[in-house]
């Protein structure tokens, strides 16, 4: 693997190394946790509707499952790499540990672009992928869920294939399913809402009321949309969102100083989070280059798109007014950028904390699916809020006590819990 600043696995390993140093971990423990426990590289032949066959590269990585069955998303992305998947699996291990839920970390993906695929082709891809991985999946082994460009429909196709292979109903083997077919109420909103729950606590800590704040958000997919919606409901104002324009293969930022109208903007957004540019312009939005989201004069930045968006090169564009960065995406900040941001006194809610609402609710879904008894939405979101708030406060308290950044505090708490599980099991 290349030792590049843009390689998320390098970022993840550096984060781990720093944490391991702080914790004083022994060599064998470092060796165990610095790389995944298991990796599956599979070729997925896919017959297209025109009769041709594409052979796609798929991955499933289990970073560590000492604390429980592994849990992690499956993404379809044209530039998918094994290192991205490794990093995501590692972050998932830490995230589950930080949230104190009994799961390990995994991740998976296929290098493909679903924009270019018909629904029947996507269904075949899901089924073929499950056939390739099935022996190592299951509610007590490894539980996939949705991620970038995979939806509840994809999860249901995967579940259906898995159940056909296993000869029984196993709703707990996949999460992110549609409500009514084993899905959990609140799952769709959970990641976005989770970001805002932690953001709300951070604002309390800074003694700032949400009504007095504005935010700029990178991304307008499911996570970003729900974060924007709840942030507005608690009184905040979002003045800029950016998104990827699939047709033009570039990103744009949509700005309205008086505050975006979430409902109206969502109404002109496709299922992948792409906003219709001309319609937005007609609705009075200023259309700017995608990177403009970062340079807004706001109090809060929410990167909620993909990895490595805040880099050494662009963090200089962050305005002095910014007080909080809530990392909605996984690994949106490179290590170098992180150091620069820390030097500016911005409170960063690290990804493994801020966006942990998704995996927490996936865990709730698993619990419900395994019982085949489903909770009301109030119950799901009530538990989610308490879990997120409690995790935030634990991290904040530790960071204050040890004079650490929120990211370092979060990693130390999480890694220490995983190390403890590994040692208790006698692995190291």
């Amino acid at each position, binding site marked *: 693997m290349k030792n590049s600043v843009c390689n998320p696995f390098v970022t993840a390993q550096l984060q781990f190394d720093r944490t391991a140093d702080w914790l004083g971990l022994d060599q064998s423990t470092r060796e165990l946790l610095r790389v995944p426990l298991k990796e599956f590289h599979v070729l997925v032949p896919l017959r297209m509707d025109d009769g041709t066959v594409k052979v796609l590269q798929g991955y499933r990585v289990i970073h560590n499952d000492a604390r429980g069955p592994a849990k992690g998303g499956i993404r379809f992305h044209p530039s998918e790499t094994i290192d991205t998947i490794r990093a995501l699996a590692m972050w998932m291990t830490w995230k589950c540990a930080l949230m104190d839920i009994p799961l390990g970390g995994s991740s998976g993906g296929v290098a493909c672009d679903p924009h270019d695929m018909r629904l029947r082709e996507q269904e075949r891809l899901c089924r073929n992928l499950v056939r390739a991985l099935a022996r190592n999946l299951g509610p007590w082994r490894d539980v996939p869920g949705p991620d970038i460009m995979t939806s509840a429909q994809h999860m249901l196709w995967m579940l259906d294939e898995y159940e056909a292979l296993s000869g029984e109903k196993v709703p707990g083997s996949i999460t992110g399913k549609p409500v009514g077919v084993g899905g959990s*109420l609140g799952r769709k909103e959970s990641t976005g809402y989770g970001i805002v729950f932690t953001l709300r606590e951070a604002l309390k800590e800074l003694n700032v009321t949400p009504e007095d704040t504005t935010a700029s958000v990178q991304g307008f997919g499911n996570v970003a949309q729900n974060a924007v919606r709840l942030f507005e409901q*608690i009184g905040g104002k979002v003045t800029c969102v950016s998104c990827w324009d699939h047709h033009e293969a570039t990103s744009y930022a949509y700005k309205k100083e008086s505050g975006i109208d979430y409902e109206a903007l969502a109404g002109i957004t496709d299922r992948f989070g792409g906003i219709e540019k001309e319609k937005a312009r007609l609705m009075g939005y200023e259309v700017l280059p995608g990177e403009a989201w970062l340079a807004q004069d706001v109090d809060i930045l929410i990167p909620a798109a993909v990895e490595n968006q805040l880099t050494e090169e662009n963090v200089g564009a962050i305005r002095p007014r910014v007080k909080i960065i809530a990392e909605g995406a996984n690994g949106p900040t490179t290590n170098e950028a992180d150091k620069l941001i820390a030097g500016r006194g911005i409170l960063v809610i690290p990804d493994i904390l801020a966006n942990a609402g998704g995996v927490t609710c996936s865990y709730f879904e698993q619990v419900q699916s395994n019982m085949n008894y489903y909770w009301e939405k*109030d119950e799901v979101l*009530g*538990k989610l809020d308490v879990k997120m708030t409690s995790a935030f406060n634990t991290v904040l308290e530790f960071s204050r006590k040890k004079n650490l950044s929120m990211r370092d505090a979060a990693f130390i708490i999480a890694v220490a819990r995983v190390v403890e599980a590994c040692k208790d099991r006698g692995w190291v």
Partner: protein
Amino acid sequence: MSLQHAFKLFDRRFFTGAEKFTVIGRGSLGGKAHGLALMKDILEGQLAPSLRPEIEVAVPTLTVITTEFFELFMRQNDLFDVASSSARDDQVAIAFQRASLPPQLVGDLRALIEQVHTPLAVRSSSVLEDAMFEPFASVYATKMIPNNQVDADTRFRKLVEAVKFVYASTFFKDAKNYLQATVHTMNDEKMAVIIQEVVGVRHGQRFYPHISGVARSYNFYPLGLAKPAEGIVNLALGLGKTIVDDGVAWSYSPGYPQANPPYNSLDDLLAQAQREFWAVNMDLPLEYNPIKENEHIMKFSLQDAENDGILRFIASTYRAQDDKIVYGITESGPRVVDFAPILKFDLIPLNRLLKELLKLCEDTLQKMVEVEFAMTLDEGRGTPARFGFLQVRPMVVSEANVELSLAELMGKNVLAASESALGNGVLGSIQDVVYVKPEKFNVHHSEAVASELEGLNYPLVEEGRPYLLIGFGRWGTSDPQAGIPVNFGQICGAKVIIESALPETSTMLSQGSHFFHNITSFKVFYFSISPSDKYTIDWGWLNGQNAVHDTEFVRHVRLPAPLKIKVDGRTGRGVICHD
């Protein structure tokens, strides 16, 4: 700065936080919470120290879910259609139960419930109560939950169900009817919710306050030595529902705490005395029913309270052989909840507290007031006692000056007259009379009568025709044997109400006590005519009028000319004359 901004946001610590009065959200507190907020510091700062150590006075710990969440709840769940529809109350309640509370609220509720294991009262606190400075007493729901389940999920679910039930009650039929009698519409109404600890003590499967009370700073029925300005206090064992909904209480004037209520005889006193009390049921509910207000409260007998060791502080005993009441409960015999150890022997200075409290509330609100409270007593010695201040409401009283001589009550064309009339002023616009047929009335049919009355009330309210309502026994009683068990929403179009006793019944008239607040705030004239009165109702004249509706038990007549109605508030005299 608005009042709600003076209070701390709920910090997810209910009992252990620095603040005992917190808010969730940025909306309005609603009337009930507003009243508590106004009084909280005054009570705890001015009143409480002088009563220590015998009584500890405070507003019980509470957090208010402001109206912001009510609006979000309605909008996010698209509930406006069902709320404004003609759906039955249970259909509205079920639709609300199916909806989800706003995501930014449920975390706070979950955190609250994870640390609280004692009963909670989930109370309505509507903005119109606040805006109108008018009472909406008993119009919206209050739900008590035992909150003692081991599992936090269950406790959370019960709390959420209770909040949704209170929200739904905003749109129940009675509430809609009630609002129609005002200048407001449903669109004006917004609901805050108070989550408050229940003042009480657990005794086995029961949790209840040892004393509940309603104290008013002005007495419209000053009997015996009592003077109107001394006010009136009603006390009962257990939850205040006994007083507010059942109309059963020990009444006394704070000027004469040792005097018994003005019953005609000891028999009457015994017949009307409290025999049961309401408590939160800490056991499994008899049925799972989230849309039932009384799901988690039950009635228990006085014997239960005696077994709990409580009656010795609040009861005396009827000695049959002497036909008299003897103090204490050392002898065997029927117990009488007369609060003698407190009112007659000053075990705790409750009366002094109430007098000072009423004055403080009057001074603060600059109006006559009604106060609700609950107390617990030390189970060993009675003191120290804990006094929980639950609510304060202003009383609305007419300022008009009407003089009515005795001769006018006996004059020509009198349809009805009374020397126990409530209200003050002159009315000359009523042409509709709804009356319970005297020849058909029987307490066994009182529930059917209530239903027929409700059916007639709605169209009259719709048409904007206020009416005179005449019936028998105690209006608004929960005991169908004692009168007609309506709630005010079912008869809210009545501008004048007459309650008449039938000669063969011994039931004391309510004299408006059930609807006291409703009738005073809407300036309803209330006439009580007992069998011993020299005044009667001219049934012959009424029966000779043309009926618009004639149902089995009720007749509705529309008169060619309006009635002339006068009430002299100072003397309590009232007369209704026809052309």
